[in-house]
């Protein structure tokens, strides 16, 4: 492992070879140098980070073990609640609002000795695929600042890609960790639904949302998953199964594993350079001893429609609480109804409003059966399609994103064009299965390409085995 990975840092800090405060200063220097150009963060928490790093060093000096992420700088997507620190979801609605509690994943990072360096930018309320819908300005792709980093966890992906922190946490509802990871050339993981607690994650689509890590390499992503994952009694949808030991299996290789390439994501709609990289990845796996075949997963073709009914429907309800009564923005008016209207109209950006209205419509009387109700049935079909696929293969691979990073403004005017960015990633959310993106080469212009690895529910081990093998094949 290179000196800059989370695993290396934690090892060195725990052994007393490096001080957490020095590690931090290195990263803060990088942030200072490039952040004005990248804008990965809504807030850099310099003072709190320094205090946390000093505390880690004191623990080591006392002979205590701070934990497996000792001294590792971590960036948190700004929809994860951090006690006393503004958590804005990149929205005017929550500008300046500080939660009175930490999200469970934040608590677990702290207990593992991690040092939070800041809150990263996102598409407002996690709704978007480019981070252009942030109320506080976009984030730029560190590989090419005229291009988007992807979204909605664009800030987290850019932070890792720019070396601001070895690990960042994001959230993934329809691809929001994996797609920006692919566009920024880093690893991004969406665990099995229920593996990581959602308590303290500001909700967008509750039956789809999962928190997951972005990291520069597969081993760091595995480490982060192990720290944040596992049962939480405070989240009713949290799985009781303990999180598996991923790192123990990273070097298992893929000999004898069966890999399927998703047929529906090889042709039209996928850019040729991206498709080429997926084929190269398939060949690399075959060379490493896996059997590889193309396999049809019809669910992929109708998943997008189902997603753009289910996610907005849940969002329309989850975002109803933002009304100016108890916290956040309030725009005064002569009565409460008008006050709520004025507050929500001013507080939410266009994309959020669109999705709220789409969701409200899909749930409303007379339309429930035609839209939301149908989408839930489609979800069952998606699950069945995957079950059929996984009866023949152990994992599936595909592009993570149909294209590499696009330019600012290229898709923001046409919502449908933007939604099509999600076509490769959303099925995993609808099915609740784990999926991750691994950087795999570049396109002709040198922009990163990501290959997606998908596995059945609870299949993080085979998924990481394949991801690690892909990473090794590039070395």
């Amino acid at each position, binding site marked *: 492992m290179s000196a800059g990975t989370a695993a290396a840092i934690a090892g060195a800090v725990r052994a007393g070879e490096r001080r957490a405060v020095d590690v931090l200063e290195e990263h803060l220097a990088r942030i200072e140098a490039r952040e004005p150009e990248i804008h990965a963060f809504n807030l850099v928490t310099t003072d709190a980070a320094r205090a946390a790093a000093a505390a880690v060093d004191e623990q080591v000096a006392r002979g205590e073990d701070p934990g497996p992420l000792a001294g590792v700088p971590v960036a948190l997507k700004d929809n994860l609640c951090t006690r006393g620190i503004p958590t804005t979801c990149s929205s005017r609605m929550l500008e300046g609002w500080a939660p009175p509690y930490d999200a469970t994943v934040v608590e677990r990072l702290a207990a593992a000795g991690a040092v939070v360096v800041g809150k990263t930018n996102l598409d407002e309320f996690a709704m978007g695929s480019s981070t252009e819908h942030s109320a506080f300005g976009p984030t730029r792709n560190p590989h090419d600042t005229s291009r988007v980093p992807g979204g909605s966890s664009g800030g987290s992906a850019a932070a890792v890609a720019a070396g601001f922190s070895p690990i960042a946490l994001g959230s993934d509802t329809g691809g929001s960790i994996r797609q920006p990871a692919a566009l920024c050339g880093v690893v991004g993981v969406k665990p099995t639904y229920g593996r990581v607690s959602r308590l303290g994650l500001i909700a967008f689509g*509750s039956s789809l949302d999962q928190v997951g890590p972005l990291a520069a390499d597969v081993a760091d992503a595995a480490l982060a998953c192990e720290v944040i994952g596992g049962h939480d009694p405070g989240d*009713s949808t949290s799985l009781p199964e303990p999180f598996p030991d991923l790192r123990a299996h990273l070097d298992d290789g893929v000999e004898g594993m069966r890999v399927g390439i998703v047929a529906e994501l090889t042709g039209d709609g996928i850019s040729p350079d991206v498709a080429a990289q997926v084929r190269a990845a398939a060949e690399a796996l075959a060379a490493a001893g896996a059997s590889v075949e193309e396999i049809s997963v019809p669910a992929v073709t109708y998943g997008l429609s189902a997603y753009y009914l289910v996610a907005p429907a849940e969002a329309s309800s989850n975002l109803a*609480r933002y009304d100016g009564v108890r916290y956040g923005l309030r725009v005064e008016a002569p009565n409460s109804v008008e006050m709520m209207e004025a507050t929500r109209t001013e507080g939410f950006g266009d994309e959020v409003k669109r999705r709220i209205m789409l969701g409200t419509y899909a749930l409303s009387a007379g339309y429930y059966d035609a839209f939301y109700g149908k989408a839930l049935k489609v979800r069952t079909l998606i699950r069945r399609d995957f079950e059929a696929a996984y009866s023949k293969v152990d994992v599936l691979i595909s592009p993570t994103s149909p294209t590499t990073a696009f330019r600012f403004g290229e898709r923001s005017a046409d919502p449908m064009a933007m939604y099509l960015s999600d076509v490769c990633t959303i099925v995993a959310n609808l099915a609740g299965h784990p999926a991750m993106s691994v950087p795999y080469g570049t396109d002709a212009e040198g922009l990163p390409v990501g290959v997606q690895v998908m596995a059945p529910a609870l299949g993080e081990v085979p998924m990481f085995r394949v991801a690690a093998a892909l990473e090794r094949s590039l070395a």
Partner: protein
Amino acid sequence: MSAATGFDPAEWEVVIGLEVHAELATRTKLFSAAPNRFGEEPNTHIDALTLGLPGSLPVLNRHAVELAIRVGLALNCTVQRSVFARKNYFYPDQSKNYQISQYELPINRDGWLELPSGKVVGIERAHLEEDTGKTTHVGGGGRIHEAEYSLVDYNRAGVPLLEIVGRPDLRSAEEARAYVSELRAILVAVGASDGKMEEGSLRVDCNVSVRRRGEDALGTRCEIKNINSLRSLGRAIEYEAARQVDLITSGERVEQQTRHWNEEDGRTHTLRSKEESDDYRYFPDPDLVVLDPSEEWIEQVRADLPMLPAARRHRLAERSGVELERTALIVERGLDELCLAAIDAGADPARTLTHAEHNLADERATGLDPAAFAELVTMEVDGKLTATQAKTVLAEMVEKGGAPAEIAAAHGFEAMDTSQLEAMVDELIAAHPDEWQRFCDGDAKITGFFVGQVMKATKGKADGKVVTGLLHQRKG
């Protein structure tokens, strides 16, 4: 609108269905561990979920489910697999702007309860849902329409409620009141709620419609809210039924609407602005999983249920030989077991129940020793005590305890010999011929004069009924 003038029950039938919300007696709220307590400083029983803070998540309270199952079984419902659904609407006291409730699949369905009269009323469903916070309106005399601003307290937000929906089987204000009383008695008996309407732990909304007698189809119904007591319930139903009949007979239609009962002016009114078209956009709450109580759990709850009021009434009626209607008050007061024990100890059943109905209103009566009670009743039936004396002795037994024979002796009670009384009556008749003449002519009131004289002479030991009987005998 003209004042309601009442209507002819021979021509019109009123149909009533009640929705009752009962606050469940849990320590914490339905979906969060904030305390379920009252009457304290505003916004002191709040946590992240109560306030609907971003990132908060619900976790179901097991005890609330247990209580819901208890009530469901007590109401003869089917307890089934159920789903929590979001009911979406905007209102300041609804901190998430949706309420977590149950919609298509409630935990309890298709039950019934039996009124003291023996009538059976259907229960459509009884489901779990969250309570809202409380809004108070400031300025403009506290009335909604003229308020300057409003204040919200979320202490009550999230408290567990059981919504019990009765079928429209009730046909009068009296039946409606009996239904609520019975439901409350059941809720209290199983420990699910303290059921106090005036304190808000039992809330009643009433659906009222009318139809001509003989018609099958139901009329258009109106929902009446803001009913805070049994008395209001009766008054509101009577007013509303008359209002609807008036409308129909004057050629107008009854519009389906929600109306507000006003206790001061004794009328129902429409609310000035109806906030929402009723599109609540229900969908299963994705933050919660399916609730499917096991057979074992349900049977355990069933086995632990206490004997319910209806069963107790039936038991008392059967074992005492007395009509069902007479048992209601006694069971309500919790005196049925006492009566049964006394009857088992040999007391005359009818006389025992009469005492329980008329002379044992005091709360402490439940502490009476059944054997002593039985002895007292037997003394009276054997003629050793008059009815009045028995009542006095009983009252003292309730207050201080003790054995009836001793108390009677201490008071100097002993029933008088009938032959002694006969002699006294004959003396009085001879001494008061004018009054005797009036008695013989049929003046019933003059009886009191003779009885009074006998009482005076015997210092109250005579049994008034016996004296009256003797007078009539003498009259011939």
